[in-house]
């Protein structure tokens, strides 16, 4: 609940039309089915919603909340459980009024953006000057500022455009006490071009590998790196999604590569990186492509033998590589190198560019990542299991392990049958490092599926720990208390950072450093036992990490 006095102050500061505590409005913010294993699919209703329009308004807002013992949870497009309040007395801060691209610096290749600038919008403007922006896997409707400052940041353009946390430059950060902290060169009055220095960088404090999800303040502007765009300044398109048709740039290639086995695939992917071929690259199984685009027919294929075998075994080791070039000579070189890599690996390349109707549909769906929403088609909902971004080899190990976990749950009827091998993989910076998340799809109306989500999360967490990886569950308050001691007691450090930057406790830290006791009643005792063993084995002590060599 919000007191009348606090509400009045917010309304005076932001304008009557930019604050609400109407239940219907608040419920529209509290409906968060994505990543939510609660069968009701709501999150806690916010005390109010507030829409600030400037950095100054954000400062005033957080100070009002601090004075009245309230908290804030900021979001931009707000897609997912992690965007909503985690406790009572939280004001949802909707950043949609701050939607401007402040500047595109063509020469130095960066853009300064506000929180509600989406990837599609920024890409369209950047392309006009021969540049492009990293768009995350969740699609062009998501906001680069949020990814850069606060949450994850993987996309299949990572080969050429990296990871959101790597692309963030100067940042304007409103702390929970209302002070403005400017990171990097911005802080010393030298502009937006660098996210670090002079002196120690605070980027790690701001977001680490995953982000604080509004747990350390509200970001009102940031600069993000832009990258070369060898395509046309404007994209012409007809249609919306699967019916979209857009001319394929002359020096672009859409290819699917297939390999006879894992080793040849992995070696080839490393070479693709070494030779700097990929503008965009992903490994997603053929079945996954079919499942997202045509889930009904895939259900029929799942019941076959020879057809299923062909899709899941013979064509298992594959990759989609999009190449772009600035000249005919460059694309010819890339074509030739890719061909040689495939031939050396005993594989083959399907050049989709040659099938113009299909290529013209692929273009925007890949370059702008607009195809993502179809992943909801199969069952209405999906979730994902990540481990730590690391080398390609380790990510393939994660994919293999994830497939086995999924096979078990598919057999039990706990999730939908997508033929199990359904990873979303990407490489960063020409495969310097890589990413894998194992996607699984479910029907949120199916009680059995909802009951499976928690034990599946535990199994994937266990698998990550066994592979010495940080599981996605590191952000989940229910598991944080348990796994902190095996991960350098990161939770202790996060709490210290939170106390230092937010002594008044104004930020909602539910997805940052809060800890909640885990309800083990919903989990198989055998899983609990396995977790306890691992926690004991990998526990850090006062003197540091466990000596696993001697053990």
């Amino acid at each position: 609940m919000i007191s009348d006095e606090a509400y009045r102050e917010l309304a005076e500061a932001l304008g009557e039309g930019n604050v609400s505590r109407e239940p219907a409005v608040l419920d529209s913010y509290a409906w968060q089915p994505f990543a939510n294993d609660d069968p009701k699919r709501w999150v806690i209703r916010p005390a109010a919603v507030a829409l600030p329009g400037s950095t100054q308004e954000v400062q005033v807002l957080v100070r009002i909340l601090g004075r009245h013992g309230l908290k804030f949870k900021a979001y931009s497009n707000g897609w997912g459980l992690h965007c909503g309040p985690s406790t009572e007395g939280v004001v949802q801060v909707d950043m949609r009024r701050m939607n401007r691209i402040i500047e595109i610096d063509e020469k130095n290749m960066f853009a300064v953006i506000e929180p509600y600038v989406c990837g599609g919008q920024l890409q369209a403007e950047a392309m006009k000057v021969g540049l492009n922006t990293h768009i995350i896997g969740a699609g062009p409707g998501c906001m680069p500022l949020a990814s850069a400052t606060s949450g994850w940041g993987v996309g299949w353009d990572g080969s050429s455009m990296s990871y959101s946390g790597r692309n963030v430059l100067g940042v304007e950060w409103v702390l929970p006490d209302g002070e403005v902290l400017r990171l990097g060169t911005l802080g010393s009055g030298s502009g937006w071009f660098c996210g670090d220095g002079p002196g120690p960088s605070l980027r790690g404090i701001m977001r680490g590998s995953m982000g604080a999800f509004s747990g350390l303040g509200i970001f009102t502007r940031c600069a993000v790196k832009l990258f070369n765009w060898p395509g046309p300044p404007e994209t012409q398109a007809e249609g919306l999604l699967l019916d979209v048709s857009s001319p394929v740039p002359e020096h672009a290639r859409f290819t699917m590569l297939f390999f006879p086995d894992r080793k040849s695939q992995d070696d080839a992917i490393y070479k693709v990186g070494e030779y700097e071929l990929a503008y965009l690259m992903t490994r997603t199984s053929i079945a996954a492509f079919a499942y997202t685009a045509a889930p009904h027919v895939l259900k029929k294929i799942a019941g076959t033998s020879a057809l299923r075998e062909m899709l899941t075994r013979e064509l298992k080791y594959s990759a989609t590589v999009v190449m772009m070039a600035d000249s005919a000579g460059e694309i010819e070189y890339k074509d030739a190198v890719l061909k040689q890599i495939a031939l050396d690996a005993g594989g083959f390349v399907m050049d989709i560019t040659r099938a113009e109707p299909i290529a013209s549909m692929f273009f925007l769906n890949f370059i702008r990542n607009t195809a993502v929403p179809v992943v909801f088609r199969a069952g209405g909902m999906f979730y994902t299991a990540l481990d730590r971004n690391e080398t390609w080899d380790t990510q393939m190990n994660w994919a293999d392990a994830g497939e086995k976990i999924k096979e078990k749950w598919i057999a039990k009827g706990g999730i939908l049958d997508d033929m199990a091998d359904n990873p979303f993989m990407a490489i960063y910076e020409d495969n310097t490092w890589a990413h894998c998340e194992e996607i699984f799809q479910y029907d949120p109306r199916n009680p059995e599926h909802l009951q499976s989500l928690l034990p599946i999360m535990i199994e994937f967490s266990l698998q990550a720990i066994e592979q010495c990886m940080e599981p996605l569950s590191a952000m989940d308050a229910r598991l944080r208390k348990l796994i902190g001691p095996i991960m350098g007691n990161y939770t202790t450090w996060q709490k210290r950072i939170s106390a230092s930057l937010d002594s008044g406790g104004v930020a909602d830290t539910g997805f940052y450093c809060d800890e909640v006791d885990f309800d083990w009643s919903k989990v198989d005792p055998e899983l609990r036992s396995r977790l306890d063993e691992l926690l004991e084995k990998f526990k850090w002590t006062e003197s540091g990490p466990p000596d696993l060599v001697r053990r």
Partner: protein
Amino acid sequence: MPPEPGQVFAVMAAAYRHGVLDKTMSMFGEALGVVMTETSINTGDLVNMLDEAQESSVLKVERLLARSKLLLKLAAHDSVMAFASRALESPAVKLIALRVTSAMLLRGIDGERPPRAPMRLKPIVARLLPGRANAGEVTR
């Protein structure tokens, strides 16, 4: 006889080595373009048609695959693929292949396309206006 593990892959790899895969991708693209223009469908329609494929159609493909062991074994030979590649250089062969592919695609689209609007309305009319159910039908 079902194919042995790796046979489909071997055929595709051989096709690629000899340039057949590239040529057939181009030809398929051309055929698809022609068909899409003739029928005024777009890629979204195609994907949805594929998604709505009948079980019988899927089983047809399954049966074809299950009986293709010898054919695949033959097709995976370099000499066979080399011949196919040379053949596809011939304008006459290309034209025939294009027409056959277009015809197959068209048959697939016509076979799977949902009935046109008047046909879909017919059963609804029959329920609402029983007397008018057979209006317009030719009686023999």
